[in-house]
């Protein structure tokens, strides 16, 4: 490329005033900035000693949980939308016919491989009934690979453990009142959450 090429954009350096050319104002500016930071509050969180503060649990993407409905049953309707949306293919659902009248299917088994999961939150976005959610539990550890494959009980227990601290996200959104939702809860008579 030639220097005369019309595609070259020649940028003029900013003109410096006398104050800037004296260098002293810039000198002081730089020094004030660093000195301010030198004495300002530090942002480091000394993690094992000090728990990090999660500003907004609503948008934090930690360990999953499977939500329960008012009767304590798993909310999931085994629609497979989350498994389809999951880019890491780590959700494995076995949907069977539901023992309850308000829905056709429910997951007999529901496993998430937390080691494969990339915590992208797509499952949460895909779910039509807000059954799967990502909590703000960030310190996920395990001693074996098997331990990191979360089954339905474990995911429900995550809900039990976190529901007080983090209410269901849909509960914090403006309520959507559809006639089917009210009738379904009213007519359901089946036992709550039929075990594994």
């Amino acid at each position, binding site marked *: *490329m030639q220097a005369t090429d019309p595609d070259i954009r020649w940028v003029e350096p900013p003109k410096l005033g006398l104050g800037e050319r004296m260098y002293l104002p810039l000198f002081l500016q730089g020094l004030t900035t*660093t000195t301010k930071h*030198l004495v300002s509050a*530090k942002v480091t969180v*000394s993690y094992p000693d000090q728990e990090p503060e999660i500003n907004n649990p609503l948008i934090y993407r930690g360990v999953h949980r499977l939500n329960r409905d008012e009767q304590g049953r798993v909310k999931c309707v085994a629609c497979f939308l989350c498994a389809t949306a999951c880019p890491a293919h780590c959700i494995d659902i076995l949907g069977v016919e539901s023992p309850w009248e308000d829905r056709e299917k429910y997951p007999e088994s529901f496993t998430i491989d937390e080691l494969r999961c990339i915590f992208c939150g797509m499952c949460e976005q895909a779910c039509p009934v807000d059954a799967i959610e990502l909590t703000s539990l960030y310190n996920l550890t395990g001693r074996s690979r098997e331990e990191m494959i979360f089954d339905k009980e474990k995911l429900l227990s995550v809900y039990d453990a976190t529901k007080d601290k983090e209410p269901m996200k849909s509960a914090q959104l403006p309520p959507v009142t559809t006639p089917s939702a009210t009738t379904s809860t009213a007519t359901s008579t089946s036992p709550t959450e039929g075990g594994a």
Partner: protein
Amino acid sequence: MLEPLIKIAVLLGGLMTAAAYFVLLERWIAAWVQDRLGPNRVGVPLTRIRLFGLGQPMADGGKFILKEEYTPAHVDKRLFLLAPISILAAALAVFAVIPFGSVLPASVYTLFGQDAATVALTEGPVPLVVAPGVDVGLLYVFALSSIAVYGVIVGGWASNNKYSFLGGLRSSAQLISYELPLGLAILSVVLASGSLNLDEIVHHQADSGVWFIFTQPLGFVVFVIAAFAEAARLPFDLPECEQELIGGYHTEYTGMKLLLFLVAEFLHMITAAFLIVLLFLGGWHIWGLAGPDEQVTWVGAVGRLIVLHLKVTGVIVFFMVVRWSWPRFRFDQLMALAWKVMLPLGMINLVAVAIFEELSLALQSQLGGWTLAISLLGSWLVCLAAWFGVAYATPMIGDNRVRKDIHTYEVDPQI
């Protein structure tokens, strides 16, 4: 015979400890400026006591000692070994003439004055410098700081590596260029105090009560900038800039040899801080602590010691904060600064100091106390005028882009 040996032991131990802790301080300040906490975990070994991380230097030292001492096959073995040794030896030897305090009283009982029964341990007060009364002290410091350049160049050359070699070349150009303004600034101090002996320079400032920073502001600025460059600290750390030269002259070094280089670097910074304090900031002097050496009490001596070391630490902290305040100079800017700005400023300062010294000698009898005020005012005016002149002339600002009008070569479009 024993006295210098004790002093050498104290100085060596103190310097090594100081260098280790200044590394910690450097890391702390780096962290604090970046809003981090910095090393705060290592305390007493094998316990859970953390002590704000004060054990870190020990851990760092242990790490360096235990690291593999690897000598690459392509290096010049003898020079490779010689470089770190020579640089550290030169950096340590400088401290032979640098007073690390004022004096200690001759008697153990002189706590507040001479009135108590005196049991003299030595004849006269003990000067706190390894080689007291060296009348070419400043020249010696200069000579040895030039030897340090050889350590860098030899290290870069022996490494047989392009980056190291470039680092060595850069440092030779940089250090030699900045020795001139450094020398000019020192020369004006020597002119004003009439001695090359560091102790006497401090005494001159202490006796008159006016530090040279007040009478030679321009010299101070020149000296500090040149000292930054001599110590190869940011914004003048071109010999070893990590981003461009991956460490420069010490790229190939590992283990203890690298440690020697790094310690020498910190010693250079300490030397520079000591020189700034001794030459321009009055050394151990603070108003109220003056007085002849013979009448120093223990309280006064310890006070002087503390004042000197506080000043030095303050200057070093300034060095470290500056590191995070300004970006590194480009090499041509560095050279332009040395030759087009620092050198003329140094000369102006030297001439101004000479004129004011001569004038105050001539006018002392007529004006009395006013001479000091007039020379102070005059030197600050000279400083301001020179500063404005530099800003107006802007020798640093040049357009180094391709000239469109005379540009002829064409790059092969295939490339």
